[in-house]
């Protein structure tokens, strides 16, 4: 059972997002970078599968040099190998280019299962996994919250509005992993030491036959911060909760026209 896990290095979810003065991008100073939280579910699923069935976990990232700690973190948690495609500054949010780069990096490496997160925190696209599946010619199951892998096939549960779908699928396949699938492990000190000796295969995008930035599929004309919200109407309800409740319902009906 060989698994390839795609991991994105993203700003910590508690980061304060500021724009560059000219509005052309995000000011990255002071941001702490982490493994995108959903990718942790993907990695954990792959680690559990290879522990049970043998085989290797390879983590792949496409990102600048600063993404390497994310790969080391995955190696420290137990991944066997890592592939780092260097670049990505010009293609942030360009899901199709990212998928093309990942597809080229994955082709030729043994994989029974390719695992992604449901979404990269920050870009918030939820697109790369499905695009990658199409480019690799694999079936995919997205938003997976439960998984059983058998001989040559898998059974997965995915979350949809108002219920769950039970899906069966032959291997090789691609999954996008959602919270609930497992409890990701943290790296232990022993793993952190071992990770230092594990191989990281560094590649240039051009070596994959793609000219980064020459053929974009997504471009941001302008970044903006959300408009400031004007202060709301806050009712002090400690002494007269019933009166406050009645006043709120009246405002919602007559002023906000929300009920």
């Amino acid at each position, binding site marked *: 059972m060989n698994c390839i896990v795609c991991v994105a290095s993203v*700003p910590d*979810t*508690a980061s*304060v*997002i500021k724009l560059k003065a000219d509005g052309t991008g995000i000011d990255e100073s002071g941001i702490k970078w982490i493994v995108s939280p*959903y990718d942790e579910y993907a990695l954990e699923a792959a680690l559990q599968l290879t522990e049970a069935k043998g085989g290797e976990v390879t983590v792949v990232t496409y990102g600048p040099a600063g993404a390497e700690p994310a790969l080391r973190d995955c190696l420290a948690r137990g991944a066997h190998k890592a592939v780092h495609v260097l670049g990505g500054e010009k293609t942030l*949010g360009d899901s*199709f*280019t990212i*998928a093309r780069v990942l597809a080229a990096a994955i082709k030729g490496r043994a994989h029974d299962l390719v695992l992604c997160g449901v979404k990269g925190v*920050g870009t*918030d*696209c939820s*697109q*790369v996994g*499905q*695009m*990658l599946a*199409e*480019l690799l010619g694999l*079936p*995919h199951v*997205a938003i997976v919250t439960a998984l059983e892998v058998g001989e040559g096939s898998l059974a997965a549960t995915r*979350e*949809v*509005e*108002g*219920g*769950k*779908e*039970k899906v069966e*699928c032959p291997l090789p396949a691609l999954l996008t992993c959602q*919270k*609930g699938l497992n409890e990701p492990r943290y790296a232990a000190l022993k793993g952190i030491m071992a990770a230092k000796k594990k191989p990281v295969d560094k590649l240039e995008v051009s070596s994959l036959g793609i000219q980064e930035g020459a053929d*974009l*599929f*997504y*471009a*941001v*004309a*302008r*970044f903006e*911060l*959300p408009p400031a919200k004007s202060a*709301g109407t*806050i*009712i002090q*309800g*400690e002494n007269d*909760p019933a009166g*406050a*409740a*009645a006043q*709120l*319902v009246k*405002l*919602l*009906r007559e002023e906000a026209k*929300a*009920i």
Partner: protein
Amino acid sequence: MAGILVFVEQRDGEIRKASLQAVSEAKRHGGAGGEVTAVLVGAGIGAAAAGLGAWGAARVFVADNPALGLYSAEGYTEAVAAAAAKAQPSAIFVAGTAMGRDLAPRVAARLGVGAIADVVKLALDGDAFTARRPIYSGKAFAEATTAGKRPQVISLRPNVFAAEESGGSAAVESLDGLGLAIRAVVKELVKAAGGELDVAEADIIVSGGRGIKGPENFALIKSLADALGGAVGASRAVVDAGWIAHSHQVGQTGKVVSPSLYVACGISGAIQHLAGMSSSKIIVAINKDPDAPIFKIADYGIVGDLFEVIPPMVAAIKAL
């Protein structure tokens, strides 16, 4: 290439509201200089097709096939790609439901183009859309384009765009001869107990957080949700505590929702919670801590004990 192709989602033959919003939005942009064409996919769904004319579709392709009864990314991609080959649209709209968010990127990759997800506003310049979408969980917005690539595959956030009938009729054509090779097969759709309204679909949501003290008190949250005809949501803290299922969670690692009314009860308003609900049209907070961050984004709020505030609120709503 001209016109807009809209993937229309149905469940048990009933068209989803979010898809009507997408068809209406396509119509409002005049079909981007062409026609609005819809593509409807499923089994035994023909009856729903003609009605799409009233919402702005001039033409409807129907892929009616027993193998397409339950959603399949591969099967539905085949159908939408076949419709795109016929309609040659300059844009493809998809409602950003769980199905739409799964389908749009696969369709785009099949057509060799990118896609723009979770769009909350569209501007048409000539025949190309610029799309506004939240990034960093709504902490910023990007005005995005497809860098000149066509068709522009765009998923629209549900409940942001209005659905409006424009009164027309549609020519219905069946989409036959699809080369279906479905590997990932949905064996079963397990519906949530009691036909519970899902937060992702609800127009009104009442959410409970750690301030409700225990799982039994979701009954109080539900009484308010029922009085308003809404769904029950939750913060991650109470989902992690096992008080309610993850399908109710709103936020960065839960669902992103844009209801017309969001009522947060006993929720502090952590940035990861706000990520899931800050685009709600009206936000109401009930919290006993006047400094709770949730009040910063609330349109209305009560500083008070939710156990004392909610029962009279329910009574006042019922008395309306």
